[in-house]
């Protein structure tokens, strides 16, 4: 018996590069940086005063005033992207009990949590909002998406730091393959452009310090990179059992063909030496897809613009694919690092790239660090023959996740 195939039939994004697919894709192809001085809060006291924020999103498009007040921004972004993906997928005609939600979040409602901790410390426990728990819990996004849609199938949250969005899509594909669900909305969201998050990541030395030139700060695989740029946003995809998608005449972007996930089991923040864990993860995804390295057309890298990640990921790519054999791009040059949303948004970018046969450039990539034997797409978009793509995400904790997406050739 042949394996159940998983179709991708809807895409939705709320990102610093745009809150609809066309704007998002145009921004990536134009190679534009979305980094700017932080606007949502006053960043004057922070060591890093810029980020990639979502400026075009209005939650009242998706929520009434009661829901808006009861949800953190991270949930509002999640539902916005999920609703857009669902609209993009068209009329599903699915049994709600066969519809699931898998949503990733890195920290959950940190904006709300910080406000309420301020209340706790400055005014006492009686001034802590009774809404804090349902607003801050990381699973609030998954819960709310299911609730708003009335979907009663599997519903859970993935928390694997920066790998979350990719894990969510991969695990959602498994739900369809194992027969638990016919349709799954899968993705991730993050909204932690907040004082504590910026201060904490800066204290680790993970963030770029280019306060005077924010638009040049995120420069994946570049010799002058000095850290990642905090981003926020959400991405969701609609996954659907292939035959039902065909039967209902759905527009099928492509296929979720392979998924790999493993653990470095090495260090809480540093990648394993030589990118060994990441290399194994990509091999697992290729094996799952039944493909060879030579079948892949390009890689959407995790490419955070940190010293350690980019070096380890480049080594991993060389291990699996050879030196400079395969073009790689990092979406983070444009939109920064969306933490748990990153993998989901990058899966959307990967899908659009293989739909159109064009790889967006890695923004700010001027000169590849000499030790990194990878072919980084930079400057202009690069045309490619329509072929499967590997999209990588690697999270603090040593969580690795890779997807293989195939274009729809049917």
């Amino acid at each position, binding site marked *: 018996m042949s394996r159940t195939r998983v179709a991708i039939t809807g895409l939705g994004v709320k990102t610093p590069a745009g809150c609809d697919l066309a704007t998002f894709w145009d921004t990536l192809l134009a190679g534009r940086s979305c980094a700017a001085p932080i606007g949502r809060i006053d960043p004057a006291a922070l060591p890093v005063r810029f980020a990639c924020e979502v400026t075009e999103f209005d939650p009242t498009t998706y929520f009434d005033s009661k829901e808006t007040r009861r949800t953190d921004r991270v949930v509002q972004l999640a539902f916005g992207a999920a609703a857009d993906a669902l609209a993009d997928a068209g009329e599903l005609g699915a049994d709600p009990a066969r519809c699931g939600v898998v949503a990733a979040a890195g920290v959950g409602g940190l904006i709300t949590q910080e406000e309420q901790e301020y209340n706790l410390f400055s005014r006492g426990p*009686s001034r802590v909002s*009774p809404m804090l728990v349902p607003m801050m819990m990381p699973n609030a996004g998954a819960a709310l998406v299911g609730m708003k849609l009335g979907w009663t199938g599997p519903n859970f949250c993935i928390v694997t730091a920066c790998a979350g969005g990719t894990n969510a899509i991969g695990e959602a594909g498994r739900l369809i393959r194992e027969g638990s669900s016919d349709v799954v909305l899968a993705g991730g969201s993050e909204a932690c452009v907040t004082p504590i998050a910026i201060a904490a990541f800066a204290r680790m030395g993970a963030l770029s310090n280019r306060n005077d030139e924010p638009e040049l700060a995120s420069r994946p695989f570049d010799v002058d990179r000095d850290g990642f740029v905090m981003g926020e946003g959400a991405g969701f995809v609609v996954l659907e059992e292939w035959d039902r998608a065909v039967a209902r005449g759905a527009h099928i972007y492509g296929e979720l063909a392979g998924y790999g996930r493993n653990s470095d089991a090495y260090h809480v923040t540093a990648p394993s030496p030589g990118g060994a864990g990441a290399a194994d993860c990509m091999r697992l995804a290729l094996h799952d897809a039944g493909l060879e390295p030579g079948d892949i057309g390009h890689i959407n890298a995790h490419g955070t613009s940190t010293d350690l990640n980019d070096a380890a990921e480049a080594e991993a790519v060389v291990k699996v694919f050879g030196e400079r054999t395969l073009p790689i791009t990092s979406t983070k040059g444009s939109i920064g690092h969306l933490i748990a949303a990153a993998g989901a948004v990058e899966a959307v970018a990967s899908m659009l790239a293989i739909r159109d046969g064009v790889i967006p450039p890695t923004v700010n990539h001027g000169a590849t660090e000499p030790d990194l034997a990878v072919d980084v797409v930079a400057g202009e978009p690069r045309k490619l023959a329509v072929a499967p793509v590997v999209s990588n995400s690697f999270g603090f904790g040593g969580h690795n996740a890779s997807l293989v997406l195939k274009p729809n050739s049917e």
Partner: protein
Amino acid sequence: MDRDQILELLTDAAVEVMDVDREIVTADARFVEDLNGDSLSVLEILEILQEKLDVDLPTESFDGVSTVGQAADVIVKIVAERAA
């Protein structure tokens, strides 16, 4: 602060929290059955009143309260006790 003023603040908060027309927020109106509320709505309204009055309104003081008027009575009592 008298009961009418508290009722006025409660009405403002109920309109905001439950997105209902002002006219239906009477003293006899029940938060859940009449005002589109749920188990969390009353807590949200009390949170707003705490800020406006700058007084602690412990949740347990409102056990058994179901109408706007009953809530006003409890708040009047708490405010009076604090002033005493």
